[in-house]
């Protein structure tokens, strides 16, 4: 077996600072989901596919931060890139697709729910702050700045040397990605008018050039950019430069491919809605209107 494959099958490291928040978030969602399902099975807030998306998102966070991928990231740039891609391109959008905010609101105790409602209601400071930072242009800029900034040699090497900086890197990557995907998935709480689908397509496509340029530059650099990897044993049959070449390609290809996937999904949704919209008058002419009592749609 290849040593890298063997290392990937090593035992996971149970990190309580990761595991406990994941368990709390998972439990709150489960309670909210069950409560909402008890009220009505026809509502669109807590559906099965959303639950699967949410828990897959949490599981991917655990995979990135507690599996051997985490340790291997300190030995191979490839694995560090894979870890970052999971955090920003897999975990964050999947968690948003789970529609976590309204479901979690039903999962927390009433005083906490009241507190959150108060914080977001009317013209409170929290709402104004969130409204400001959740503007699509700001979401895009903040994430792109965080994403590219951490790939500078100085901060990247520092993160590999100093554990709290490494943790900060992962937290900012994940939170930045949550901000980035917010307007794309159009998750609740919705503080702005929803972006049209063509706007979302442009939004994600705008990320491709900066990401591709950075990935291309890393992959094609004649020197090792992240010098920390010069100081580790080359146990996996590749030099630091070869590792960097593949790592840069992962950054370039994975993120670009992910954005193109999103564009294809968006186009699919646009065509589906268009088709549904055109079919509606014909259907309405032949059927009686149906009113669903208790129908709740927070993020559709």
């Amino acid at each position, binding site marked *: 077996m290849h040593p890298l494959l063997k290392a990937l099958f090593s035992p996971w490291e149970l990190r*309580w600072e990761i595991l406990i928040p994941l368990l709390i978030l998972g439990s709150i969602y489960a309670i909210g989901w069950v409560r909402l399902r008890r009220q009505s099975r026809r509502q669109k807030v807590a559906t099965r596919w959303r639950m699967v998306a949410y828990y897959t998102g949490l599981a991917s966070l655990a995979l990135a931060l507690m599996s051997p991928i985490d340790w291997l990231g300190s030995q191979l740039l490839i694995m560090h890139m894979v870890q970052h891609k999971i955090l920003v391109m897999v975990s964050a959008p999947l968690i948003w697709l789970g529609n976590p905010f309204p479901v979690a609101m039903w999962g927390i105790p009433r005083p906490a729910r009241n507190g959150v409602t108060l914080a977001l209601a009317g013209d409170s400071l929290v709402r104004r702050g969130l409204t400001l930072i959740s503007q699509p242009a700001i979401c895009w800029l903040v994430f792109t700045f965080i994403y590219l900034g951490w790939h500078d040699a100085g901060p990247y090497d520092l993160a590999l040397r100093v554990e709290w900086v490494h943790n900060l890197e992962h937290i900012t990557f994940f939170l930045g990605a949550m901000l980035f995907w917010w307007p794309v998935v159009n998750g609740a709480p919705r503080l702005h008018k929803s972006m049209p689908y063509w706007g979302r397509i442009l939004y994600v496509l705008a990320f491709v050039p900066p990401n591709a340029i950075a990935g291309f530059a890393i992959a094609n650099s004649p020197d090792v950019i992240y010098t920390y990897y010069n100081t580790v044993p080359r146990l996996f049959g590749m030099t630091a430069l070869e590792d960097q070449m593949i790592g840069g390609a992962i950054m370039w290809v994975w993120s670009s491919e992910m954005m193109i996937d999103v564009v294809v999904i968006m186009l699919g949704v646009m065509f589906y809605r268009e088709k549904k919209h055109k079919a509606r008058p014909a259907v309405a002419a032949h059927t009686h209107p149906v009113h669903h009592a208790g129908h709740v749609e927070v993020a559709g």
Partner: protein
Amino acid sequence: MRQYWIDVRSRAVPVALLALAMLAITAGVSSAHGGGTPQLSDVEAGPFRLFVWTSPEPWRAGGEAHVTVAVTSLDAAGQTIPVDDASVAIELAPAGTPERAIVLAATPLAGAGVGFYEGDTSLSQAGEWDVSVKVSAAAGTGDAGFVYQVMPGSQINWLLWLGGALAVLAVVGYFGTRRIKPSPA
């Protein structure tokens, strides 16, 4: 009675969250999962090639001192391979006083591939320390060392910072949830 349980439940959640946060802080300090400041890189030690990292950065008197060692050797093709049957001892002594050495028996690094070993201790004083790594395995024995400048103990009172942060959160929570009165037109 029902009201009592509602009160208990509403208090239990923040208390449990606080307890978990404290646990998470403690767990975060003690865990080390790769990385660290490289001190020795591909250094020959008998039949072995050693790599040594230290964390946190810097070591402080009275604080945690973590050492990670990778023990490797070269096979006939010149490829680096891990040594998984090594017995690794880490000796730390204030400069010039070897009789005061602290000896750690390093253990295989949890959650990592083979050939990685780690040890933890706390150093009593600031200043120069001699750190020596001694390895023995079926292939033979070897040692390598480096000097580390330990900094004085931290003057930061983390409890005070934690209290301050909670106070700020409380203030933000209080004012953040207040509705702003509309200004007269």
